[in-house]
């Protein structure tokens, strides 16, 4: 039987990988994907807790997180497209909105 800790650790690792990606990568698309990964890591902990506490509230939270993720993906990709349209780049270094 797998212990709760194992799931939590897995979640932590995935979260940290995602975080590493956000900090090191410069491609906006990949940064977005890393964020998705971090959300997933959180989902995992929710599900694990929910299973081990025998309380289904966690599932509902995951459901909500997925909704948010979907919305975020839609809006985020739209932003990327419009930024790309104006700046012709998808690299964070080149996107400096304050410079206009």
């Amino acid at each position, binding site marked *: 039987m797998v212990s709760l800790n194992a799931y939590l650790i897995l979640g932590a690792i995935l979260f940290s990988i995602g975080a590493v990606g956000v900090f090191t990568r410069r491609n906006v698309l990949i940064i977005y994907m890393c964020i998705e990964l971090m959300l997933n890591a959180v989902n995992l902990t929710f599900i694990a807790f929910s299973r081990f506490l025998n309380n289904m509230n966690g599932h509902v939270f995951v459901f909500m997180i997925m909704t948010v993720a979907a919305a975020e993906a839609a809006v985020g990709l739209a932003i990327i*497209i419009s930024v*790309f*349209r104006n700046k*012709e780049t998808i690299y964070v270094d080149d996107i400096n909105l304050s410079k206009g």
Partner: protein
Amino acid sequence: MSDSAKDLHSEYMVINMGPSHPVTHGTVKFLLTLEGETIIDMKVDIGFLHRGFEKMCENGTWEQVMPYTDRLNYVSPLINNVGYALAVEKLVGIDVPERCKYIRVIASELSRISDHYTNIAAGAMEVGGFTAFLYFVEARELVWDLIEMLCGARVTSNYVRIGGVKSDLPDGFKDKTRDVFKKCRKLWADVNKLLTKNRIFIDRVRNVGIMPPDEAIAWGFTGPCLRACGIPYDVRKFHPYLVYDQMDFEVPVGEKGDNFDRYLVRMEEINQSMRIVEQALEKIPSGPINVNMPEYRWQSKEDISTRIESLIFHFKTVTEGIKPPPGEIYSAVEGANGELGFYLVSDGSGKPYKCRVRPPCFPLTAAMPKMVKGGFIADIVPTFDMINMIGGECDR
């Protein structure tokens, strides 16, 4: 989705469509500049079937040109034959017998039917309706049986001769025609049901490739494409040749000049051509089929074997060719795609000094970029087909 593709200031995608691309029939190349799916610019490159028609004609005798004309618009070779023969007859100044005129009308109209069949069939296939394609191929097969019966070959007929035709109507031609037309009408009705009111097909062709009438004239459109714009220009009516003035037929015209009109005009022309053939078969008089001017044609076998001067003259005409008087003429017939003009220059020798064809689909193809610009890639398909660009005629 395509809208978002349109907005991007990303680089335009430059795509080479053809010449070995299914839609282009292997004979034309489109250089497309695309933004997403939208056509920003289009260059048409033809000439992949340039076979040196004029050069070949200038090196053959007047009679020897006949097989080359077969392969101009290879879907309706008989019309080309007739057009060339009429042009030479105009140059020489002879008038063919009445029965010959009727036979030529029958031959041309059968050819026109098969051309329109092929055109609509290919159009249907290219927008995905493979079954409609095969129904019309089947119908065309039946018409080709008639043509084969008449002139001995399915495609490259080489039937018409200067001053007449090669042979008379075969026995039983009329009955066979009646049978064939009955089957063809049935298949026509099937295709009509499959396509004409089918919204998918209509959406594909309606309001696509629009050409307003005045621009169509300026671009030199003739034939079904011009009639689709609402201008009833038809050489058969405007400059009646052969016996078209005695035939009762209507000129179908469209309204908008889009692909749907072109399709409808062609569908209707099939019916009208069938009517013409039936009338011609009813009215055909008996009589000679060749003009009685021995100096302009090869001698008959009987004459050759019985009269020595005939034999000598035969050798002379075959080796040197007939000799029309020097001069130049332009003569036009209504080809399947429009006005098929022949501009002949004779210097009095046995070979044409110049044999120029006015290809009807050449200006049509030239107007392609104008018709599809701003449309989608998929719009090229029906537009190009309804133009009915025939490589042999366009590139010669």
